């Protein structure tokens, strides 16, 4: 009997409470963890995050909160101010809640042109 019924009941139990994910994170948390754990992996992680974001844009899928901005900050720390500002603008466009912070970041970068920040 009814193995299939039991199976679907079990599935319901597993899936019943789980909410559908809103975003495709593309391993964002793991990349950020690696940035702290292995600082030498930061530039490789930047490439991975950029690849993920580019793929989402290609599929017209909404990029999760903070991904553009943190990608921008990784670019900034790698000395690429143009790409940093580009990503801050994208974060601002995607998420109106970020406007204050992103405007501040963009303004600071515009006001201090030659100064390179490295961390």
């Amino acid at each position, binding site marked *: 009997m009814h193995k299939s019924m039991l199976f679907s*009941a079990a599935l319901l139990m597993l899936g019943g409470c789980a909410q559908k994910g809103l975003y495709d994170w593309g391993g964002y948390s793991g990349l950020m963890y690696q940035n702290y754990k292995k600082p030498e992996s930061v530039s490789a992680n930047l490439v991975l995050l950029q690849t993920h974001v580019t793929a989402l844009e290609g599929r017209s899928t909404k990029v999760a909160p903070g991904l553009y901005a943190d990608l921008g900050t990784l670019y900034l720390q790698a000395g690429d101010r143009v790409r940093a500002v580009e990503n801050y603008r994208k974060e601002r466009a995607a998420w109106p809640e970020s406007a204050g912070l992103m405007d501040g970041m963009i303004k600071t970068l515009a006001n201090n042109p030659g100064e390179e920040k490295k961390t």
Partner: protein
Amino acid sequence: MKAFIALLAALLVTGCATPVKTDLSAFRAANPRSILVVPAVNKTLNVDAPNYLLTTLTVPLAEKGFYVFPVHTARTVLEQEGFYEGDAIHQQPPQALASLFGADAILYVTINRWDAQYALITTTVTVNFDYRLVSKDGTELWKANKQMQYAPQNQNAGHPLATLLVAAVTAAMTRADPNYLPLAVMANEQVFNTDATAIPAGPYRLVN
């Protein structure tokens, strides 16, 4: 068999029910759209714990429907303002922090435990966090404490001596590299979503 099906049915009925205990009236009144997660206060000896914890908080809160400020960017901005440690950041007026970022609410976490206790053949890994969400006007919206523990099960290798050996090897591996991160992820998941402390859904969860 019938009893088994009845049990399944009972689980189905009760599986999702969460007892309502936490007072969420202040949370609902403030109705925050965005949450700033600041670096945690660390009461443990593990200096990496706050950095690691910071990487686990964005996903559960964003999936709950809130805009979560980019944690790496936020940390960088705070450092530019001269704040490197959770202690100093937690002592700032929440109003000032919220206005610096344009945030509706701030999540403060204190790490009480992030340790591995060693015994002969087993190792118990423990994390314990105090969470506190404060609105941009300084009102406390929600708070909770959560502890998670993990002790590798003694694997039964058949022969008593072999079982002991397997357990000792497992304990040694846990000792060499205790895996705190999955515990932290589980603690966050439960405290925000499935415990009696679960928080209301944010605007992006509600519109979908």
